[in-house]
């Protein structure tokens, strides 16, 4: 969990990194489903089966959230009778499933994606339009390179300052040396 948080911090601080966007699949209508097609950019990083498994589970969870069954009808009718004031105290079925989805994505990130240097974002943060997969190892590489550069440059600067002050002192002493 701490690892994921630090990864998220790195993600926030870096600029544009390698990202892949998994788009929506509209073949069954406006229900929230994502395409299970394996993107070519991830071929070297990730196993195709695992990716498809993740997306398929996500699709099933969204289908469960939007299912038109007896539960949703009862919830709808009850809410209508109370002029929808019941939602002030109760959470809707959809929101409950969304929480499940967030937990699932975090779990997947911790178990499968973070060890491979990837990070999945929850599609609710993008308006349920895309699932974005960020390449975190690129970020980590850039970040560590930049930070090491800054260390090197600071070290060089200190060294140069020390050297120049020594040289100045040397000149000063030589001038003061009596003939």
């Amino acid at each position: 969990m701490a690892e994921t948080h630090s990864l998220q911090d790195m993600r926030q601080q870096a600029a544009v990194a390698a990202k892949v966007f998994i788009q929506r699949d509209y073949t069954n209508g406006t229900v929230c489903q994502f395409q299970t097609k394996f993107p070519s950019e991830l071929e070297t990083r990730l196993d195709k089966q695992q990716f498809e498994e993740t997306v398929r589970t996500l699709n099933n969870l969204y289908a469960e959230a939007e299912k038109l069954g007896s539960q949703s009808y009862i919830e709808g009718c009850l809410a209508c009778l109370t002029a929808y004031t019941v939602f002030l105290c109760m959470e809707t079925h959809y929101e409950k499933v969304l929480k499940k989805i967030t937990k699932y994505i975090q779990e997947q990130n911790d178990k499968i994606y973070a060890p491979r240097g990837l990070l999945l974002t929850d599609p609710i943060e993008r308006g349920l339009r895309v699932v974005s997969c960020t390449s975190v190892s690129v970020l980590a590489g850039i970040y560590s390179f930049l930070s090491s550069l800054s260390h090197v440059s600071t070290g060089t600067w200190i060294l140069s300052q020390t050297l120049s002050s020594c040289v100045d002192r040397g000149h000063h002493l030589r001038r003061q040396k009596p003939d």
Partner: protein
Amino acid sequence: MSAVMITRKVRKWEKLPGKNTFCCDGRVMMARQKGVFYLTLFLIVGTCSLFFAFECPYLAVHLSPTIPVFAIVLFLFVLAMLLRTSFSDPGVLPRALQEEATFIEMEIEAANGNVPAGQRPPPRIRNVQINNQIVKLKYCYTCKIFRPPRASHCSICDNCVDRFDHHCPWVGNCVGKRNYRYFYLFTLSLSLLTIYIFTFDIVHVVMRSVDNGFLNTLKETPGTVLEVLVCFFTLWSVVGLTGFHTYLLSLNQTTNEDIKGSWSGKNRVQNPYSHKNIIKNCCEVLCGPTYPSVLDRRGLTQEDLPVPVASAAPSSSSSSSSPVPQTTKTKAPLIPNKRTPDDAKPSIAASAQKSPSPKEENPPAPKAPPLASPEMDVETSINKDKTH
């Protein structure tokens, strides 16, 4: 010259693009023009108050006390539905962030191939197959996304709305996926309320006229005349609207699709979203799951405000680039939908900032929302940024 960077936490609604007004710290979301909404509210509350004042005492005594009780219940239901329609997020789709927009652009370029110089590039359309019908998805240049099916861009609110029905000035908001059922129930209950009040006005006048005479009745209860007038004109429009929306509901169509004639005509595609069953269509829209808002209005995000410290002489370069007025340093301006050009100026002491994709047009004059009181925590971490 030194500039002080104040990092403050803002609610995300303050940074949302689009022409919406937000109240109660992001809990309420409406369009900018609210005048007609106030008129609707006034007409409903005014007419009902007259009914309770003039008709109800007489009818409760002479006919039945359940008449005013039912009227109150209906009135409260109408108000609840109206406020729910007006104040909720209709299903606004957030705009694409920079990386997503760039990714889509790259995909479009790849799909179009090389366009010879002087020729216009082909329109940005994506074809998808829904229930064995081909549906075209259009690209939205403002939001930089391919609109999902049934979504449309509302020019009044400047947002893409999912399952866009229409923008209703009476309600002061767009009607979309999330608030269509409340809108429908509002028109239905308002029709019932109007018919109810109209009927009992007539009954009341008739009953009184039998005892006192017609003209005397009108003199005793002048409110009745006003009510009858309002109800008469409202009846035609609201009942007609309810009938129209019942028709659309049974076919699982939106007003937008009906106006454009998307599914009508011989050579056109048949509606791929309809279940071909009236009851199923109605149940899906009215009793289906309640979709949550994908706009995180009340989430917190960081904002960096470079506030130049006027020590010796104010440097023109830093002050001209900053949109924050120099008079307010401790209290940041309370402006909704203000797009600060944070992306143009990369802040060195940058913490997380979630900025929406930069808009091409200039932001309109800022307007303070009514009833708003955003919680602003001015972070104590002040980074001194010395610029020579």
